[in-house]
């Protein structure tokens, strides 16, 4: 979770990701930020998140991102 927050904050330093449950809806991330985030998560965790999973529902908040990482074998 900490690594995810660091990546998110690196992408959007001005945003508080702990305070939102809907990153896309609250304007913290757009679809291109989502791609930047996936590339960083892939690199940090040594995984390749499937392209079909790169949808807003999986990047709504810290919990959904953690769920996606667990599906990809990341132990959090």
């Amino acid at each position: 979770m900490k690594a995810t927050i660091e990546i998110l904050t690196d992408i959007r330093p001005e945003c508080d990701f702990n305070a939102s449950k809907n990153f896309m809806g609250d304007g913290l991330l757009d679809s291109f930020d989502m791609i930047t985030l996936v590339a960083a998560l892939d690199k940090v965790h040594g995984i390749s998140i499937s392209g079909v999973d790169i949808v807003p529902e999986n990047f709504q908040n810290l919990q959904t991102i953690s769920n996606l990482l667990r599906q990809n074998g990341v132990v959090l």
Partner: protein
Amino acid sequence: MNLNFRGKRLSGILAVVPANERTFLEEMKNYNFPEARSLKLKEVMGYNKRRMVTHGVCVSDLAVAGMERLFQKNQLGRNEFDAMILVTQSPDHFMPPTSNIIQGRLNLKQDLLCLDINQGCAGYVIGLIQAFMLLDQDSIQKVVLINADVLSRKTSPQDRNSYPLIGDAASITIVERGEKEAVIYADLKMDGTRHAALIIPAGGFRLPSTPDTCILEDAGDNNLRAKDHLRMDGSTVFNFVQAEVPKLIEGLLARAGIPISDVDYYLSHQANRFMIQKLADKLKVPQCKMPNNIVEHFGNSSSVTIPLAITYNLSNHFKNNNSQVCLAGFGAGLTWSAMLMQLGNLDFCEIAECA
């Protein structure tokens, strides 16, 4: 739609790129995003350099420059081919067909079938399919397939979704009869219900261009574009590609009885680097077999990215060797297409710059 062809081959490929080169760094200030955020995206997507036509240059200009070069270098005879197909989304005019304009400018014979096809990023495979079908006619011995687009002219410089990606280019592929036993497998699918995902809304008969359609608008994503500009719903297109293209390729290879690992090169349309990396991962194809460097050097030039990938990365290889290749295109329509074939021993395989 499953299609098989026998006794056809590609004998030469020339890519034509404008000399004018632009960089993402010099254009970044045009976008309504913090530079640091754009720079992160640059690394992931492969935004770097791209080729753009200068003011007023059209598809027929790129095509004529390439064809004249082939004639001058004796790589193609002026009256040696019987059909000329042009695949483009940016014709010189609505009327007449741009392929006829090219025929006229090159003083080609009248006994020539000229055909425009309005297709985008899936258009290389679709153009080849059309060329192969024409070669089933006794009177057609050789087909020239031209792929060309100048879509930078229809993209808003303040649209970070599209403008940093778009490149202009043309390619000329010579298609002729080959060994009778050689089978080429193709598959293509179309879904017009999703046509709005890649569209230039105004300028046609549905919504003619007016002073209003030139007005820049923010669709809520901090990008400014007019109805006269190209619009790409990036998320929809990305998800469409990841969901549909691997299935199409896997089905094509299964039908041909070829394991994924037996294909020497996967030459995919290159919309952006990230998309191609994800496709390679999904198919479990090593990235060395699926080049992804065309956007960073030339930009996304619609149906020309596949021939550009061939000529830029594998020119010597394909002049001297024969390899099993899988081509895959996807884009406007929505349309997605794939082809499995032997490619190689080409008479020419090169890139030319034009002014």
